[in-house]
């Protein structure tokens, strides 16, 4: 599977995703500069973490209007996959590719810590290999990760099974204490209705090697790669 990692001015998880995809997963991967519009030769686009444009104004706001993000709509329509982590999630929301918005953490401080995520939805290409209720461990690192959606949107998300991860205890209980940033309903990650666009605040690339935060983050990639084996090529070109 061919991956592209998007680089905005101020992005910093780009190198980490690139490293994991090439050195751990041994998949072809390239960087794509934010001004580019052509995504024709890739299957999965990664929007990595960082402070694109300094996150000035609102996290992800400026990047959400960049040329490469504008071309994501068409890319997804053609069957492409998009994974946005941390700032990438914020960008996807700002661009309207995912519902809701990310606000300042309720504690009003930056948080870098390990979190547990309970898997709620396994019908996406990124979670197909997982069990519902399975608990993953992945770190977060953000100041604006409080997921917000209004009640109607939330109802719709639930109906369409778009809520993919919630912050939970090690045992999988969705509690207030397990919520690191005040996200509504402990939501940590949501997907598009088709499941091909996934956004999450935690960092799967920081949990991709046993020596560095465990390997639960790899499961998302392995699900994705497994999907391809099942249904062959997916690009409807």
């Amino acid at each position, binding site marked *: 599977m061919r991956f592209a990692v998007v680089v905005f001015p101020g992005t910093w998880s780009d190198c980490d995703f690139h*490293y994991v995809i090439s050195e751990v997963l041994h998949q072809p991967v390239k960087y794509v500069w934010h001004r580019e519009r052509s995504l024709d030769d890739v299957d999965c686009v990664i929007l990595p973490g*960082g402070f694109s444009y300094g996150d000035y104004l609102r996290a992800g706001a400026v990047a959400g209007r960049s040329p490469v993000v504008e071309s994501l709509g068409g890319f997804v329509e053609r069957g492409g996959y998009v994974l946005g982590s941390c700032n990438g999630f914020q960008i996807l929301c700002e661009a309207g590719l995912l519902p809701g918005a990310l606000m300042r953490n309720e504690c009003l401080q930056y948080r870098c810590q390990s979190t547990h995520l309970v898997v709620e939805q396994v019908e996406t290409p990124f979670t197909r290999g997982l069990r519902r209720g399975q608990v993953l461990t992945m770190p977060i690192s953000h100041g604006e990760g409080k997921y917000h959606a209004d009640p109607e949107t939330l109802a719709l998300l639930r109906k369409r099974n778009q809520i993919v991860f919630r912050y939970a205890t090690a045992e999988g209980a969705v509690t207030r204490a397990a919520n690191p940033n005040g996200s509504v309903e402990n939501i940590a990650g949501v997907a598009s209705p088709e499941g091909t666009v996934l956004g999450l605040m935690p960092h799967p690339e920081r949990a991709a090697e046993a020596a560095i935060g465990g390997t639960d983050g790899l499961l998302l990639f392995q699900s994705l790669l497994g999907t391809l084996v099942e249904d062959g090529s997916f690009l409807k070109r």
Partner: protein
Amino acid sequence: MTGAEPKVTVDLARALGLTGEEYDRIVKRLGREPSYTELGLFSALWSEHCAYKHSRVFLRRLPQTGPRVLQGPGENAGAVDIGDGWAVVFKIESHNHPSFIEPFQGAATGVGGILRDIFTMGARPIAILDSLRFGDPDDPKTRKLIEGVVSGISWYGNCFGCPTVGGEMAFAPEYAGNPLVNVLCVGLVRADEIFRARAAGVGNPVFYVGNKTGRDGIHGATMASATFDEHAEERRPTVQVGDPFTEKLLLEACLEAMRTGAIVGIQDMGAAGLACCTSEMPARSGTGMEVEISRVPQREWGMTPYEILLSESQERMLLVAARGREEEIRRVFAKWELDAVQIGQVTEADELVVRERDEVVARVPVAALADGPRYEKPTTEPADLAGLRAFDPLSLAEPRDLGATLATLLGAPTIASKEWTFRQYDQQVGINTLVLPGSDAAVLRVKGTRRALAVKTDGNGRQVFLDPRRGAAMAVCEAARNVSCAGGRPIGVTDCLNFGSPERPEILWQFAEAIDGIAEACRHLDLPVVGGNVSFYNETSGQAVLPTPVIGVVGLLEDAARHSTQGFKAAGHRVALLGGEAVSLGGSEYLWTLHRRLAGALAPLDLELERRVQAAVQNAVEAGLVASAHDCAEGGIAVALAECCVTGRQRVGAQIALPGGIRGDLALFGEGPSRIVVSVEPARVRAFEALMAESAIPWRWIGATGGERLRMAVGEADAIDAPLERLESAWRSGFERHMA
């Protein structure tokens, strides 16, 4: 030029921080009166901060060379060879004064400055450590300072994308009016691709890159060279504000431009800004420089040459390019949307010529600027010190409940968990951090090799106050010991020397003694000091900070997988104490926390023993023989063991027996160097014992892990029997409860 320029007089020179004699020297050197702009150049470059007037004679005593040293002091940062073609670049810097005035921006720009020092060397920053000292967190004013400083570091480091992997935080009333904010940065570079702050090649173009210049921080360097008093508020210049986003672009642009091969030399515009770069760079290369000041990108109207030269606006660099390759430089910086403007060239005559629209506003020999005055001022031991040292802590009664005392100590802000702080820092970006904050030293892998680096800062102001020489040597030992506990072999030191005013003989004595202590310890441990920083004048209204040398040590691990952490791993492991028996309550955390006394004599330091103990633990970790290793620092062995119990993945208790014959509080909470607690799996006990025998160090088994309590006996007496839950909650809440 503007007609409103002040007339140059000796009084003006004094107002700018120069002395009368210094002014005379300038006149003699130039053979005439300086112009206003020239006087500004001298006032900045001859400030203590830039010229090290009072410290240089002492700094020479530090060992600065070694087989691995690729770059010693004198450049933006030091560089040490770590094999496989890689070098580690590191340096520590203080931003004490700016952080007191504006905690958030002061600390943030401190991070920005040290990051630039690292990437001007061509290195990519991989880690930050912050060493902080504040007054008592009971005081709401101090809490505000802490909040501001920590969020400033967090904001800048996180946004820039360099992990903050460690540091320290200690509290004492002496820091209330003068907090210390020291930041260390570590970077990696190919050993044969190190860049230096040189202006070589007559005719080469000089480029200004980065943010535009404003009136920020004019006389920042001069300010860092004066003490605070009640008028500090009036004297403050425009506060410098940080822009980590631009800094990140500057990093990428500089590294990309360096790869083109078109850069000859580069320096960060830090203290004294453009003035400093345009004189230091040619001075190092025996060349001169000519700049046209009106070409400097400016953000404010009507700035004078004086202001432009002395501005300390952030996120700016001066670089010398190879002639004919200007376009390549411009192209790279344009891609990153940054200004890159040619403002001058390297010249033959060794002078700095500054023009404003072709009119010369300054013409000064670069050597005159770069070689500031050096003083060898008198030093005197403080009169009351001997008396303080003669105090015997054992003249105080022993507490009845030693378990409760342990909980009290664990809850002392200096000892308690600093998670409140480091959870605000990104600790992992770059995916290199093998050991996160919360153990003795941070460990970072070096991608593309099997190796890893271990890093830690340490410095105990109380110990240095009571005995500057031994206390400073102990700081070197402690930082190195922390690195050793993680499995690293220390390979280099950077130091940040935070003291009061050097114009007071007592302070200068502390300083001189501390340098001797550092030098002695480094020589014994085979550690070159490859860079550092002196911060004097840390006093407010005559109250100086505790003399605080902060020592940063970088160590190398041959096998990244063979590192260790401090927490116990499982029940049924045996626990050993490596190293000396000598401890003291003099200057200890115990004496301060329980009795609010700063007095007594420090434990003896045997540097040969220290070296052997560290080597032993390095070998044990490298051979995979220990399950955990933790050094005994503030709070003595009882605190060290409690930390082992509660900082692992799960809590693990222990039963410990210490030799009797001394008072319980001294045995448990006495502090001394060269002591490390390790735990060993049963299957490795034999091999461990064999290795210890070979190491020829004093050591003994002191107990075993297991259970839900920490039990400690001293001789026949059961001294402590405390549930871990209670100890952990004291330790976790001790600092954080102040900040909630």
